[in-house]
């Protein structure tokens, strides 16, 4: 290998790391240091204090938001993986000539999300919306269901928007599984279902976990969908960060919320990667 190759290796690593440090870590560290400053009517003073953090942990609203954020993250991750798995498996194994088109179409929710969440979900989920009208039309319910705002609506809306990420991640993983393995199992007498459960599922576990983690990470920092599909009773950390940073201009409190978000989600990820590493070690 030699030191020359080693030098180039480190140089190649230094540039992307430098970009991340300079354009991500540094500006965020500077901004979030405001969480340790006292704020008077939205203006930062020079006084150091922990009262912003105390407010985050003492307020029922913020504690609820923290919990809900992780519930949403896990819910979105699970729902997306559950929906993406059949879709990804189909797209990988299908021999239809529309395969390419179907794959491209699966990216659609990601690109449409801004307007869709503002309007499309409203039309579907509101009291006189498509779902309630159909359910009542079939006579299955008598009074309209209150589908939004709710934590469930947030999970569905975010899962919709982030589904493409799970689909493509799973497709990567699934395609690495040699189809001959499945054929071999079936030629030995296993039904398609048994093959799926005992051959495909275990082999696609890294893809499932990867897809879950990706959707989880993006869901917990998402602002716009929870803002529209949630209400005062269903706040997440990201919506509270937005309200404080962009509307109330309370940057000290907003920064404290952001710090709590990133630290807790890093902790969760660290935990799951340790667990995942133990499981993956052959």
């Amino acid at each position, binding site marked *: 290998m030699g030191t020359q190759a080693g030098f*180039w*290796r480190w140089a*190649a*690593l230094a540039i*992307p*790391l430098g970009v*991340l440090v300079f*354009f991500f870590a540094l*500006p*965020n560290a*500077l*901004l979030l240091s405001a969480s340790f400053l006292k704020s008077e009517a939205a203006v930062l003073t020079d006084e150091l204090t922990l009262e912003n953090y105390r407010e985050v942990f003492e307020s029922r609203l913020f504690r609820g938001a923290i919990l809900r954020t992780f519930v949403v993250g896990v819910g979105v991750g699970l729902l997306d993986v559950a929906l993406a798995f*059949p*879709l990804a498996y*189909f797209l990988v194994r*299908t*021999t239809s000539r529309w*395969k*390419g*088109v179907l*794959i*491209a*179409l*699966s*990216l*659609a*929710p990601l*690109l*449409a999300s*801004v*307007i*869709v969440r*503002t*309007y*499309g979900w409203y*039309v*579907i989920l509101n009291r006189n919306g*498509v779902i309630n009208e159909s359910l009542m039309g079939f006579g299955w319910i008598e009074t309209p269901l209150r589908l939004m705002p709710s934590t469930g609506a947030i999970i569905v809306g975010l899962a919709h928007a982030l*589904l*493409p*990420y799970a689909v493509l991640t799973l497709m*990567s993983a699934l*395609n*690495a599984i040699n189809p001959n393995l499945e054929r071999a199992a079936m030629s030995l007498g296993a039904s*398609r279902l048994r093959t*799926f459960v005992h051959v495909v599922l275990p082999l696609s576990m890294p893809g499932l976990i990867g897809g879950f983690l*990706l959707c989880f*990470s*993006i869901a917990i920092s998402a*602002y*716009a969908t929870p803002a529209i599909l949630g209400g005062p009773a269903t706040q997440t950390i990201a919506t509270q*960060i937005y309200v404080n*940073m*962009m509307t109330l201009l309370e940057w000290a409190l907003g920064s404290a919320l*952001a710090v709590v*978000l*990133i630290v807790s989600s*890093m902790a969760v*990820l660290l935990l799951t*990667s340790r667990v995942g590493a133990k499981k993956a070690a052959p």
Partner: protein
Amino acid sequence: MTNSHASGPWRALRWTVAGIYVFVFAPILITASVSFNESNRSLFPPRGFSLRWWDRAFSPEWLEPLLFSLQLASLTAAICVTLGTPLAFALTRWRFRGRMAVAALTLGPLMMPALVTGVGLLQLFQIAGARGSIGFPALLAGHVVISLPFAVRCVGISLQGMPHNVELAAMSLGARPWRPQWEIVLPLIKTGVIAGAVFAFVHSFTDVNLSIFLAAPGQIPVTVKIMGFLEFGFAPTLAAVSVITLVVPLIVVGIVQWFFGLGDFIYGDAR
């Protein structure tokens, strides 16, 4: 061998997949249909039929930001895979102290709301005296940073699926140490690189919260313009614009897909 596709489980799978596509497209089609309203009100189902809002959606007022977004997203994707590939190598192949920290740093931009990074970057540019960089340069820096995790992740997945001994085998056959990297490994991770590029492209194209802070007049991504419009109410023009901002990037991605092999780019060539 594919006659198993006629079996019960496969048919059940097809129905499930069809259901999922309905879930995917129902909100999109509903929103798109609003664009055909006769009057300037966002009614669903639409009343009357008119294409005038589509006429407005194709005006320079909307096409310029769309083009800007496409350019920005393309450049972001290219830079992200260039920077992300070495980083992915380091994270999957090397063992070094601080590896967890680097992994966390790489995942950070995904978990931090883009709004916060945007405000922080605007502050940073101001402190560093780079006022003039607000606009395309600042946007590019911000977009690269928030999209980099995708590139690293996709290339990483590709690398994990690739056996280490490919490089060793090549070297035992006489290849110099650094040749395995370029000539053998790169084609094998090609699919991860393309996937990472597509993810980065889409993430950059759809970002709005970071872009609000770093945009300058004349250098505005289309998502920011849409958001500005939304503050004053939803309108059929916006519905039309949203369809265009959905279809155009899909076409771009489709072209990339076709160029690099029909339908094959997103998954590794295990065959």
